[in-house]
């Protein structure tokens, strides 16, 4: 398995509270991604990073922000969580980016009440 960990693995929070999810990799891959997975929608890209301090939006970025201050860490923040953000969040990494295999972390199940 690729060396990717996510924390926390499970979280329950209340509407309006801030939440930060962490993805940590030991593979020294340049590209990192945050996806959410929902029934009926499959996996959808939230944000991605192509290097330290270099990030860009995916298709469902509203309500989310990201930061990458070190190669190994990619943080996803929900500034004010809403019930529509209840989902399973996966981090992925890729060595070369476009066209290259993405390897997924174990996921974080987030419930917003």
């Amino acid at each position, binding site marked *: 398995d690729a060396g990717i960990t996510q924390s926390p693995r499970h979280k329950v929070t209340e509407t309006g509270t801030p939440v930060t999810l962490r993805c940590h990799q030991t593979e020294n891959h340049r590209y990192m991604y945050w996806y959410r997975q929902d029934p009926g929608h*499959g*996996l959808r890209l939230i944000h991605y990073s192509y290097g330290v301090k270099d990030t860009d939006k995916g298709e469902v970025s509203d309500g989310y922000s990201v930061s990458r201050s070190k190669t190994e860490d990619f943080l996803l923040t929900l500034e004010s969580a809403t019930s529509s953000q209840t989902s399973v969040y996966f981090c992925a990494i890729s060595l070369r980016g476009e*066209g290259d295999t993405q390897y997924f972390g174990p996921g974080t199940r987030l419930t917003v009440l």
Partner: protein
Amino acid sequence: EDKVVQSPLSLVVHEGDTVTLNCSYEVTNFRSLLWYKQEKKAPTFLFMLTSSGIEKKSGRLSSILDKKELFSILNITATQTGDSAVYLCAVYPQGAQKLVFGQGTRLTINP
């Protein structure tokens, strides 16, 4: 809009059967197609296909791509209960970082 469609959405077979899962796509300037297996956890990588007609094979699993007809198939022979999972197909459009995923095929293998 880029789109990936998998069929069937759900499939139940008996152990030992052979199954074929389908993935068709419409994307702007295709780059590559990937298959993943997802049990009750993270998707795990199976194959990447970039050229038409070349079969990728790993044990009982194999996959082939048809770039002219815009589809791929994933075959599993002599199925086992451990093959039960959701199989995801994803496509990279050219020039995009985004993998476009299909909804997946839920495969259940009964003993």
